[in-house]
Structures are given as structure tokens and as C-alpha cells.
């Protein structure tokens, strides 16, 4: 159900491919490094950052506990301000609602604001089935769309593309002569500006996501940088906003917390260039018809999960991606979802539970950096461990009720070995003999049988000829001899 409709490779294989892409790794390293440093600076300059984080967590938890109350309140407020609220159990239902609204307008083209939720439900592909073209208006999303690819980062979806590649795309898509466009980012942006300006002025229907929705006033908040959001929210006659049910907040006042947490965590800015707030429709200003589609698609199921439910606090900032040592090396594509990185590793198995998602909780070193930077303090490592436990327990290789996995046996044996110094040393001697055929250039490779999975993705040091314990004993003996002299 992720956008694109192609069959994704499992994480393991996709990551191995990504690691061989030098350009991608350089781009990722630069981007994640730069944003990490900036984020640290703009969060540390606030004396009350931790208090904001705590409040953000508390507000989200409170909202989720009372989600039914706030959703009906939001529905009533939006309706009283001239909007129409629709409910969707799943992606198909949400897509059908949007398709019918677009069909009723008679339009063949809609403009879109970058939205992860509509990517999640594959809305563009669904509209294409009706012959409707959804034009992505965020610069990076446009680049990705023109290239026929998937975004590789929540925040900078086109970081895997360099300027020469983007120029080629634009020349073709905007039907320009090569002499009319060079590869300077400012010129490339200007070309996209004039191409999209015409689309904005012609468009009669726009589709957006939502960053937040205020239950008591019916206010939708949309945070952006480029102004394409403002264009979509003010110029067309009809606006359709698709929003996950977990995005609701109780009151206007709560935004004072999230308008500080989100930009500083996301683009590492004190504030993003543009934020739009609107409640239903406004007389003489902006769209005359507003539709809000409230999407469940696995969210209420996640809410029922006592360990996993805190995942729903996520405000999609992408701070966890930029600090993740796995993400930094493989990028977003191997996760096979619009939600990559640490948050994707816990969100995808819960929201959609696709076959490949069972591997995602293992795409982590459990270092905890994601938890530390999360603006709403989602304990990602703990949830990852819980997800791994479920994967193991649900594994078909483990016979139900019958004893143990190979891993269980190995760990029990290890416990016995580590419990006794003599057993430990004996095991070490044995292993030293046994490892010889597998050591190449000082690294253990291609271990046999059940151990092969381990050595495949790790450079293991072999057990040294003289281990620490024997070195220590000899050293102590020498010291005694010298002392006797």
C-alpha cells in the first residue's frame, strides 16, 4: 500500500545495494551531518527545550487517551465552519473519497502539497486510475515525481539526486532548450517556479495533508518552507485535506508547544518560513469548499497496543532519521515505505504489517540516539525490542509450545560458559582452533550454518592467539619475579 506499487526488496537486500552507491552515501553523510549539527544548536539555545518536550509528550498522550472525544469535537468544529468531514477506515476508502470528490469537480489535474499521509495511501496512483494527474508542488517531491522514483528522506526527499540529474529531468519535463537552463540550484528552482506558477493559477482542486488539527476550533495547521503550500491552500476553489486521526490536538493553545518542537527538530530552524492555519472556509479568502478526510488505516489498532501506542505521538519531524547510524548509511529506500529510519522501523510493522516489515525492527543498533532527539520522547529502542520479541515469537521456524530456537540453545550454552572461568577459557581455546579456516586478512568471514547471518553483515575480529586473561596472568607472574629480585 505504499506509493509506487512496485514490489520492494526486503530491507536486508535493499540495504546491501544502497551501501554500494557511493554518491548516495556521500549525499546522505553531508545532509544528515549538517542537519544534526544545526538541530543541536537550535534546540540547545532554548533554556526550556526539555520542558517543551515533556509538554509535547504529555499533550499527545492526553489526546490519544481521549482520541474519540477530540475527533468528534474536531468534526463538529470543522462542520460548523463550513467544512465537510469524511471518515476512512483504510487507504482504499480514503482514496475512494478523494477520487469521488475530484470526479465531482470534473477536473483532470489537481495540485498537491507534500504530504506523507497521501503517499502512505498511494493517492496519486489511485487518482491516476481515473486519469487524474496529481502534480506534486514541493520542489523535491516534483523532482522525485518527474524521475518516477520514491522519496528517500522525509525532509529532503530528493537528496539522492544531484544538480546535473535534476537539470536533465527539468529540461525534459518543462520542454526547455538546453541553452535555457544551467545546473545552478537557484536557476533550477526558478525554472520550477515558473512551471508551477501556471499550474497554481489554473488549478481548481488542491490536496494536502495536515501537520496538526485543533479540535475545539477546527483549525488545520500546515507547516512548509517554499510557499507551494500557501498556493494550494488559498488559490483553488476546492481543498481536500487527508489527515491521520492521530494528528488532532485538543486546543489552539497546544500549538504553542508544537510550533516550537517541530521546526527546530525538523529543518533545524527557529521557525519554518511559512505556516498556514485555517478553520473550515473563510468568506472571500481561499477555497469555497473544504473537505477533511480522517484516516484510520491501522492507527486505532496501534492505539490498542500498550507498548506500541506511543508511536502515534510522532509529529513526522525526521530528527530520528538524521541521527540514526543505519539510516545514514543506507538512506530511506531500503525501508520500502514512506516512513523510513527509526520511526519507520516501528511505525510500518504496526500501521501496515507488510511481510517485509518484520525485518525493519532489526535495522537498528539500539544505540538510543533516536529517543534522545525525539521531540515527543518516543522510546523507539524499547518499542524496537518489543517488536523483535513479537517477530521471534511469531516466527514459523519456532514450533509453538515446543521448546527452543537455536538462538535459545546458544544463549543458554553461553550463559553456562560465561558462568565459570575454566569453562570460558576452554571454550576460548576450542574456538581459537575452530576459527582458523574462517579467518581472512585478520577478519572472521563466512561462518558456517546458523552463524553465517552474523558474519555476513559484520567484520568480526578473530579470537587472538594470546587472550587478555593469559596475558594478565603472565604479566602478574613476571611482576612477582621482578619483585623478588
Amino acid at each position, binding site marked *: 500500500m505504499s506509493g509506487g506499487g512496485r514490489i520492494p526488496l526486503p530491507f536486508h537486500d535493499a540495504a546491501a545495494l544502497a551501501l554500494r552507491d557511493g554518491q548516495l552515501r556521500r549525499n546522505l553523510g553531508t545532509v544528515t551531518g549538517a542537519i544534526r549539527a544545526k538541530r543541536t544548536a537550535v534546540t540547545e539555545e532554548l533554556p*526550556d527545550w526539555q520542558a517543551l518536550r515533556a*509538554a509535547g509528550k504529555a499533550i499527545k498522550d*492526553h489526546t490519544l*487517551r*481521549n*482520541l*474519540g472525544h477530540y*475527533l468528534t469535537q474536531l468534526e463538529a468544529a470543522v*462542520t460548523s465552519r463550513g467544512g*465537510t468531514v469524511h*471518515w*476512512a*477506515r483504510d487507504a482504499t476508502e480514503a482514496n*475512494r*473519497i478523494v477520487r469521488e470528490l475530484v470526479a465531482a469537480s470534473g477536473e483532470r489535474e489537481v495540485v498537491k502539497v507534500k504530504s506523507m499521509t497521501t503517499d502512505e495511501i498511494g493517492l496519486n496512483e489511485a487518482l491516476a486510475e481515473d486519469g487524474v494527474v496529481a502534480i506534486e*508542488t*514541493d520542489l*523535491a517531491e516534483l*523532482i522525485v515525481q518527474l524521475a518516477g522514483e520514491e522519496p528517500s528522506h522525509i525532509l529532503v*526527499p530528493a537528496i539522492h*539526486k*544531484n*544538480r546535473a540529474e*535534476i537539470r536533465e529531468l527539468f529540461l525534459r519535463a518543462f520542454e526547455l532548450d538546453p541553452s535555457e537552463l544551467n545546473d545552478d*540550484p537557484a536557476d533550477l*528552482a526558478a525554472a520550477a*517556479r515558473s512551471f*508551477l*506558477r501556471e499550474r*497554481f*493559477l489554473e488549478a481548481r482542486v488542491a490536496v494536502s495533508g495536515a501537520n496538526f488539527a485543533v479540535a475545539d*476550533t477546527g483549525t488545520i495547521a500546515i507547516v512548509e*518552507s*517554499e*510557499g507551494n503550500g500557501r*498556493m494550494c491552500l*488559498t488559490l483553488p476553489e476546492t481543498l481536500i485535506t487527508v489527515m491521520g486521526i492521530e494528528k488532532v490536538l485538543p486546543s*489552539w*493553545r497546544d500549538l*504553542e508547544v508544537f*510550533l*516550537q518542537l517541530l521546526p527546530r527538530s525538523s*529543518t533545524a530552524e*527557529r*521557525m*519554518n*518560513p*511559512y*505556516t*498556514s*492555519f485555517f*478553520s473550515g472556509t*473563510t468568506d472571500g*479568502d481561499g477555497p469555497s469548499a473544504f473537505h477533511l478526510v*480522517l484516516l*484510520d488505516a491501522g492507527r*486505532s*489498532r496501534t*492505539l*490498542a497496543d500498550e507498548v506500541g501506542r506511543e508511536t502515534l505521538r510522532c509529529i513526522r519531524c525526521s530528527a530520528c532519521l538524521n541521527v540514526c547510524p543505519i539510516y545514514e548509511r543506507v538512506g530511506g529506500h531500503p525501508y520500502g515505505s514512506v516512513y523510513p529510519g527509526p520511526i519507520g522501523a516501528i511505525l510500518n510493522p504496526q500501521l501496515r504489517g507488510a511481510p517485509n516489515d518484520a525485518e525493519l525492527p532489526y535495522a537498528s543498533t539500539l544505540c538510543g540516539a533516536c529517543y534522545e532527539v525525539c521531540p515527543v520522547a518516543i522510546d523507539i529502542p524499547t518499542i524496537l525490542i518489543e517488536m523483535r520479541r513479537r517477530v521471534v515469537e511469531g516466527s514459523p521456524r519456532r514450533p509453538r509450545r515446543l521448546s527452543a530456537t537455536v538462538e535459545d540453545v546458544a544463549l543458554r550454552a553461553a550463559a553456562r560458559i560465561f558462568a565459570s572461568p575454566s569453562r570460558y577459557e576452554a571454550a576460548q581455546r576450542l574456538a581459537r582452533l575452530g576459527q582458523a579456516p574462517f579467518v581472512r586478512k585478520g577478519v572472521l568471514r563466512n561462518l558456517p550454518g546458523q552463524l553465517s547471518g552474523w558474519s555476513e553483515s559484520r567484520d568480526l575480529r578473530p579470537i587472538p592467539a594470546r587472550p587478555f586473561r593469559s596475558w594478565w596472568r603472565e604479566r602478574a607472574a613476571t611482576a612477582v619475579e621482578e619483585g623478588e629480585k
Partner: protein
Amino acid sequence: MSRSDHDGNRDRGGATAREAVLRQVAAATEGVRDDDPVAAHVRLKRGYRRNDERTREALLDLLEERLVDYGVDVIRTGSAELASVLSTELDRRRAQLVVVPTGAPDAWTAALDGRRTIADGAGGLELDEADATLSGCAVAIAETGTIVLDGGPGQGRRAATLLPDLHLCVLNASDVVALVPEAVARMQLAVESGAALTWISGPSATSDIELVRVAGVHGPRTLVVALVHDA
């Protein structure tokens, strides 16, 4: 009609999507819901800063620093010189056709002598032809360098401050607050009355191509703030 036609699409149990989602949410929150969500919401701990001790002069300096950091041109002026300052700016930037929102004060209109003007209610194609928009704002946040528009007198429709390439914004010093929570509190009534807000922190920008920051993808490429110290 308040609700979607899709409420008519019932599942096998006979529930509409609305009923099904709300029932699932209710089941998921069984035993953890608050008896009185409003009271529980009021009790939430908010340990962050909600007001600020800095002097007005310090706030204006901070705001200017933040705006300049975003690439905004800031001009400090007194209310007596405002008309000539605006006029000079429009000349300097060769703005001939200027959008002037309803309710613009006389001091601004005096700056428009000899220039063509259009109202903020004009259509998108017309607004797109304009060189500049002159607007006021409701409040500004020093700590984040943010200008807040709420569509009040002299601020115009949202499209008016979006389509022209130059946005010239008049900000009264008395409308500058230090913190985000202060601005949110000031906007409470406007939001409750249904106003649409636009928060602007610098000109439109993108870093989508190789992380190189480019000003002005879609919004105005130039933002000028005239900060009136005695208003």
C-alpha cells in the same frame, strides 16, 4: 449536509466508516480515557516559558537579528517618516503596480502617489501581475523572527501577500512579543472567530537541491519589514 456520503458505505457489521473508526478508537482507549478530558487537559504540566523579562529595545534588536538572519531587509523608522520610507523602498525596487489591502492606513497610501494600485480582492491572475504588496501584520515573535498575519484591516487576503514577488510589511513595535506562546495567546480570539492565519519567517526558501539554500521558490522572493518604533 454535515457528513460524508461515505457514511452510507456500511461494513459487514452494518457500521458506517465513522462508526467503525470511533468504535475501534473507543475500544483501544477503554480504561485509559479521562472522565473529564477538559479538566485533565487543563491540568497538563506546562513547564516551558510563557512570558519574558527582556526590555522592548532588546526584543526589537533580537527580532531584527532574526529577520536579517533569514535574509529579510529590516528598516527602522518613526511613524512620521513611514510614508517616505515606504515610497523610497518601492522606488528602489521598481515596484509600479502595488497591491493595497482594504483598511490600509493613510500613512501608507501617501506613499503610493503616482503608482498603480490594485485591491487585495483581485483574482489570482491579476495579483500575479503586481510587483509588490504592502501589508500590515497582527503580531511578531522576536525569538523566532516570525511575522503573523490574521487577515485584519490592512493585511489583505492570503493570496495578496503570496503572489507578488515583493512583500513590504509594516510592523508596529508595540506588536512585537518575545515568545511563541505569547503570540499564540494574542491570536486566540482571531482563531476563535474563524480567521485564517499566515506565519511568515523569512522569504520562501528551499534546500532541496544538494542542500544549497535558495530563496523564493514560490512565495515572494523579497520580504522587507518596516519596523515602526513609535507605533
